């Protein structure tokens, strides 16, 4: 299996945080090409490239652009979601930290397609070093008069998972508490400051220059027909070589885990893979030959998500794994919608009963039943994100739940790899970093 770099191309040989270096590898050559096109022609070209959103949902980027009402008397906005918060995901951090100019160039191109003069990049507060690098790149590009009539504002979030949800992000950007908005109206109709707004992930926007530079046909040669291009896959957990790997879409998961990732450490056995970040259904070892692209993963009942693979070995108690992620989503639920706010709490309480040896077999059905009444019943999918993995654990590792009942508690007897990692969540606080130190 081979690394195929589009997003990170050139970063090994040069310091692409610098404008001159980025220009030396053809950087900002795509921009004048795009600016010479009409917005409609640019949207058509990007549509032909079939670039799908790298943030999680895989929604075609250009459908978002084509929904923007450019005849609106209001300004149009491009918002880049750099609030990378999905447990297991750290790909956008790599883009912003190593090749920020590719994101900046992508912003300028994507903004031209929707006749936008003002771009906002919403970066999570914890990414301090990446913020400094990105802000420096923005300043450098502006000073080099690459912006024309456009401008880019980098805005730091204050640290909440919910702000990665696009409408909560808009509220946070407007200075309000980050909570999701009802849809419709969708952001392309009524987004930031109630104006037409396109919201895309960092990796999506940073892929745009390559499409202009090399042409649509060359871009479509990469990846698979239904999902052209590359993605940076973050792999972590019980793996020999954790880290980021940029690969063509459609690369078999097994190759990432065993060839590049080096397999499972210390001769242990693979137990589960959570393929898209902690919010998606987990896969069992016999399912890992799946190609890593949107449609293939969806076909086997899970999601591409944020291209973040969490590898779990056989030391891990599945109930603890479910509890750990349910607690996270309970903690991060913004509280606006009852099914998510209350449901995630109930899920945690039931899972704790299993660990404490106080559950009965009927609690498995209760857990599923509560989950089914969280799914799709809130303004955003945060509650669903607690349910998807939990339901997959119950479906694929039901015997472990039953064993907790029969054993009167955790059958791992304190030896699970998550033992003790479950509890300290209660004392976790968000990073206090809000200000940029002098």
């Amino acid at each position, binding site marked *: 299996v081979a690394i195929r770099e589009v997003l990170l191309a050139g970063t090994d040989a040069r310091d692409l945080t610098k404008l001159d270096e980025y220009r030396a590898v053809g950087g900002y050559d795509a921009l004048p090409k795009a600016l010479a096109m009409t917005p409609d022609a640019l949207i058509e070209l990007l549509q032909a490239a079939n670039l799908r959103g790298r943030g999680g949902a895989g929604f075609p980027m250009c459908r978002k652009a084509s929904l923007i009402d450019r005849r609106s008397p209001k300004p149009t906005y491009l918002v880049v979601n750099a609030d*990378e918060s999905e447990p297991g995901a*750290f790909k956008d951090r790599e883009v912003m930290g190593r090749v920020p100019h590719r994101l900046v160039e992508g912003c300028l191109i994507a903004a031209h397609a929707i006749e936008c003069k003002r771009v906002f990049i919403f970066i999570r507060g914890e990414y301090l*070093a990446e913020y400094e690098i990105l802000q420096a790149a923005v300043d450098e590009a502006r000073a080099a008069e690459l912006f024309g009539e456009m401008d880019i504002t980098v805005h730091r979030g204050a640290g909440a998972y919910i702000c990665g949800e696009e409408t909560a992000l808009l509220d946070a950007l407007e200075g309000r508490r980050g909570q999701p908005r009802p849809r419709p109206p969708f952001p392309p109709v009524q987004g930031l400051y109630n104006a037409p707004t396109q919201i895309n992930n960092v990796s999506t926007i940073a892929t745009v220059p390559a499409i202009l530079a090399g042409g649509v046909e060359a871009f479509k040669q990469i990846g698979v027909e239904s999902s052209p291009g590359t993605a940076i896959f973050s792999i972590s957990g019980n793996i020999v070589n954790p880290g980021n790997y940029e690969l063509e879409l459609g690369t078999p998961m097994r190759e990432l885990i065993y060839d590049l990732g080096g397999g499972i450490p210390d001769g242990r056995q693979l137990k589960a893979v959570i393929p898209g970040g902690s919010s998606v259904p987990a896969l069992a070892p016999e399912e890992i030959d799946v190609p890593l692209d949107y449609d293939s993963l969806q076909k086997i009942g899970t999601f591409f998500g944020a291209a973040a693979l969490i590898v779990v070995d056989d030391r891990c108690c599945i109930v603890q794994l479910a509890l750990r992620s349910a607690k996270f989503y309970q903690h991060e639920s913004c509280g606006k919608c009852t099914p998510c706010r209350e449901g995630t709490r109930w899920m945690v309480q039931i899972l704790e009963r299993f660990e404490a040896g106080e559950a009965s077999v009927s609690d498995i059905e209760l857990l599923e039943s509560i989950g089914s009444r969280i799914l799709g019943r809130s303004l955003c999918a945060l509650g669903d994100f607690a349910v998807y993995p939990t339901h997959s654990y119950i479906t694929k590792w039901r015997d472990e739940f039953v064993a907790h009942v029969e054993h009167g508690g955790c059958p791992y007897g304190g030896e699970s790899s998550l033992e003790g990692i479950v509890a300290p969540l209660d004392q976790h606080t968000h990073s206090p970093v809000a200000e940029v130190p002098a």
Partner: protein
Amino acid sequence: VVEAFEHELGVAPGETTEDGEVTFRAVECLGGCGYATVVAVDHRYRQHVGPGDVQAIVEELRGHS
């Protein structure tokens, strides 16, 4: 790593050392799943921290303060 800091600083997560110089907190995600364990020292992140690195981090921090 947490235990090593507890040992080195003499305080538990959520507490401040008696001299008021160092506060030790357990924090949520710093975006480094691939580079665990991540420790934030005065806003700057150290990656791949093992228990054996803790003493040097604390000495450096003490030196600064």
